[in-house]
């Protein structure tokens, strides 16, 4: 079994899907000849040919829109948006068509599409290369939104996304692409959808997070051990639908909730989690819910990006204050 980085695990899942399902077609800017700007598709065009692994023209609207037409014909397009900050030209297609076609046609036309893209900042990239815009997509019914936090989960979730008969947005935390290696078996086993994952059990507080933030949260949780603060850490993993029941169960045990995300706070996914707990789990709360998030500013150019992204210190403070409240 190989020890892989997250981006290698994605490459492995894509290769597995291409190998085992002739309907799978990859498309995106610079994914073929170049193997993707993060090398997520490295080697795949050579192996599967230019019709299965297509270099798209430079137009996100066309990538998403053609995926709709291809999927309606029974192909399973896996489209890459080069960075999440460039998703806007694709939103009309994603929100007005992908998310709606099954509903609009009463199940006549269905769209097994995956739209993959790098998510989040922290890699010293230029403007628009560090966005976390999951909330926009989660607000739209008809889409699933996933965000893995480990290589193995990335492999399993990506296969699940590709096999799912409905459109899935697949967010890949750029900061994690090469951060760590993990054993990943190329067994073709898809992970479960629509559920979150317990990363760490704890008594004192439930911390919900996803993507790159999971690593910072685990560090904070580790640091807080020395203060006898025992954190339960949940990797949301499925950002839409949200596995609220698991979060509520955890909060029922710990009585406290901190949500950590890199995206801007206002109307972020954290708000939805907090609102649901304030609705369905209020009587379990021993302290105010706290969100530790990106600020409601524009993601700054990279010299200040680490002042924007919740740091381990900021996360630890948020947890500590919640436990002490």
């Amino acid at each position, binding site marked *: 079994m190989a020890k892989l980085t997250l981006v290698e695990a994605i490459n492995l899942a894509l290769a597995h899907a291409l190998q085992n399902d002739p309907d799978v077609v990859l498309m995106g800017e610079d994914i073929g000849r170049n193997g993707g700007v993060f090398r997520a598709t490295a080697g795949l065009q050579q192996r599967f040919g230019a019709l299965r692994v297509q270099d798209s023209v430079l*137009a996100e609207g066309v990538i998403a*829109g053609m995926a709709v037409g*291809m999927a309606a014909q029974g192909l399973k397009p896996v489209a890459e948006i080069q960075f999440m900050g460039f998703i806007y030209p694709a939103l009309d*297609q994603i929100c007005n068509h992908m998310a709606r076609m099954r509903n609009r046609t*009463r199940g006549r036309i*269905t769209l097994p599409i995956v739209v993959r893209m790098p998510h989040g900042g922290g890699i010293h990239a230029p403007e628009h290369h560090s966005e976390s815009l999951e909330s926009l997509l989660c607000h739209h019914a008809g889409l699933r939104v996933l965000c893995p936090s480990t290589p193995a989960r990335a492999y399993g979730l990506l296969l699940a996304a590709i096999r799912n008969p409905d459109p899935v947005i697949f967010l890949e935390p750029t900061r994690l692409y090469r951060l760590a290696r993990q054993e990943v078996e190329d067994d073709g086993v898809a992970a479960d959808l629509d559920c979150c994952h317990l990363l760490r059990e704890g008594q004192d507080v439930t911390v919900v997070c996803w993507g790159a933030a999971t690593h910072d949260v685990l560090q904070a949780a580790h640091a807080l051990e020395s203060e006898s603060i025992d954190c339960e850490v949940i990797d949301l993993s499925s950002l839409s639908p*949200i596995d609220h029941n698991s979060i509520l169960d955890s909060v029922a045990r710990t009585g406290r909730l901190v949500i950590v995300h890199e995206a801007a706070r206002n109307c972020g996914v954290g708000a939805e989690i907090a609102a649901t707990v304030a609705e369905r789990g209020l009587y379990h709360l021993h302290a105010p819910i706290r969100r530790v998030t990106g600020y409601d500013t524009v993601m700054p150019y990279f010299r200040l990006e680490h002042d924007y992204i919740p740091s381990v210190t900021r996360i630890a403070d948020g947890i500590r204050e919640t436990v002490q409240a």
Partner: protein
Amino acid sequence: MHSVANFDIHYRQLLDAAGMPTGEWPGFGRDPAQLLAMYRMMTLCRVFDTKAINLQRTGRLGTYAPCTGQEATHVGVGAAMQADDVLFPVYREYGTQLWRGVTLAGIYTYWNGDERGTWFDGPRQDFPWCVPIASQMPHAAGAAMAFKVRGQARCAVAYIGDGGTSQGAFYEALNAAGAQTLPLVAVVVNNGWAISVPVAEQTAARTLAQKAIAAGIAGIQVDGNDIIAVRAVMEEALARARNGGGPTLVEALTYRLSDHTTADDATRYRPAGELEAAWQREPLLRTRHYLQAHGHWSDTQEAALRADCQAQVDAAVSAYQALPAASTDSMFEHLFAQLPHELQAQQASARHYAAHKG
């Protein structure tokens, strides 16, 4: 300074406004049965359309987008297509849809605010109406890509309005289809107006067909009120596409003889006289003139056809009005193949309030 590329845009007309042939007709034009089938369908469209407007005015239909004046384009395109081609309509190309097997009742159901109208038993793969202007264009390119990937000799046919040619999605899709040599035929229905904006204010381009040049694909202009020319041009474009010759942009010159929709009042913006002049070029009469002049049609047959169309339309009206109301649940029924657990409570709530309604 020297010329490195040059281009010509051609115009095709085969049946003029008076019903006189104006060029060499293709095979189907010499087959009265085929001509009559097309004429019958154009007439059905006209009758259907008139009824739809009446239904809306009397509160039995929602806002409706009429097709009167554009029947030759719509039916001509339909007649040129093969059954396994796939259509990507905008919202008023009923003639093509009916030709391909969409039902009259289905169209009424759609405009009556009911998703069930988009279930096509006939052309199962045809796309439903597409309201966000131009967004259907990449879908058609995508279907064409699927045909290419699978080596199928099929075509995608996409409609777009003159107004729609201002949207980026239109150019993007044509460019992508050209770059990848996809079997796509796009039909710009130039009916002169995008709601209140005349085509001359929508673009400085003298023709809309020339927009093909930007994509490096074939472009041609056709008299869109001349069903012979429309079908001929489409058959050529489709054959070329099927044979790996890449996409074509066809501009059909026609006219919107109605308001934009039943919610619109064109007298607010349309210059006096323009409408009357356009009626002189409308597609049905010229076809009938030709058919009658050549002994293929009579006043008696015309009366019988009108009555038959009316009966079909009346039956469709009864059918859509008899459709029981959709259940509130149905909002959740087709959201996903399998409704996520989290949404079940919402569905239950909707069901609860539906039961307690009124």
